[in-house]
C-alpha cells in the first residue's frame, strides 16, 4: 500500500466514525414511549409520546374501557396529520372526529385533564351506547 492509499484509508475510517457518531446522536435524540395509567374501575388512559431532544413532538392520549373482556377506545386525543383533534368512539368502534383549535402543548394538557376528570362520565355514556 503506497502513502496516498494509506492516508486515503485513514480518512475513510475517520469519516466512517464521524458518520456513525452523528447517526448515534440522531437516534438518541428521538425516543418513543407507550404506557397506560390506571384511571378507575375498568378504565385506563393510554399515553403514546414521541420526544425529540427532550421535547414532546407527538402525542396520543386515549381513554379505554373494559367492555365484554376487551379494552375499547372511548376518547382519543392526538395530533396526527399536523393538527390536534379528538376522536370519540362508540361501542361498535365507529368514531366521530372533532378538531381542536389549540396549540400542541395546550391540546396535550387538555387531553390529560379532560380524561382524568371526566373518565367516569365518558364510561357511563359509552356503556349506554351514547
Amino acid at each position: 500500500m503506497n502513502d496516498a492509499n494509506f492516508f486515503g484509508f485513514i480518512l475513510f475510517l475517520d469519516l466512517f466514525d464521524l458518520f456513525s457518531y452523528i447517526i448515534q446522536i440522531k437516534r438518541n435524540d428521538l425516543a418513543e414511549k407507550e404506557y397506560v395509567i390506571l384511571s378507575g374501575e375498568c378504565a385506563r388512559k393510554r399515553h403514546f409520546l414521541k420526544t425529540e431532544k427532550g421535547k414532546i413532538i407527538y402525542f396520543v392520549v386515549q381513554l379505554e374501557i373494559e367492555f365484554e373482556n376487551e379494552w375499547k377506545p372511548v376518547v382519543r386525543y392526538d395530533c396526527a396529520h399536523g393538527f390536534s383533534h379528538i376522536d370519540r368512539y362508540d361501542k361498535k368502534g365507529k368514531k366521530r372526529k372533532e378538531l381542536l383549535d389549540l396549540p400542541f402543548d395546550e391540546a396535550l394538557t387538555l387531553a390529560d385533564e379532560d380524561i382524568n376528570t371526566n373518565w367516569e362520565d365518558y364510561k357511563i355514556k359509552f356503556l349506554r351506547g351514547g
Partner: protein
Amino acid sequence: MNRFEIKNSMLVNEFDSYIREHPEVAQNIPDNALVVMLLEEDVEFSQWNRRNAKRMAEKDQSIVFINIKKLKPVLSRIEELAIETAN
C-alpha cells in the same frame, strides 16, 4: 367517583404534568406498562390501587408503581391579573 378514584385522578394529573415537564422520565417506564399511583401518606388508598393494578393488569404486562412521597401545596399558575368592573 368514590374517594379513592377522586384522589387517583388528582395524582394522575400531577404525574401527567410532571411528565410533560420532564418527558425524559417516561423513558424509565417499561413499554406498555400499567402505571399505578400510590401515596405514601395514605396507606388505604395505596392498598386499594395495588389491588386494582393486580386485577386490571393484562397477562405479562409490567406494573409500575409511582409512589408519591410528598406533594407541594396547590398554587395558582396565574402570574398577573387585572380585575375590571363593568358599571
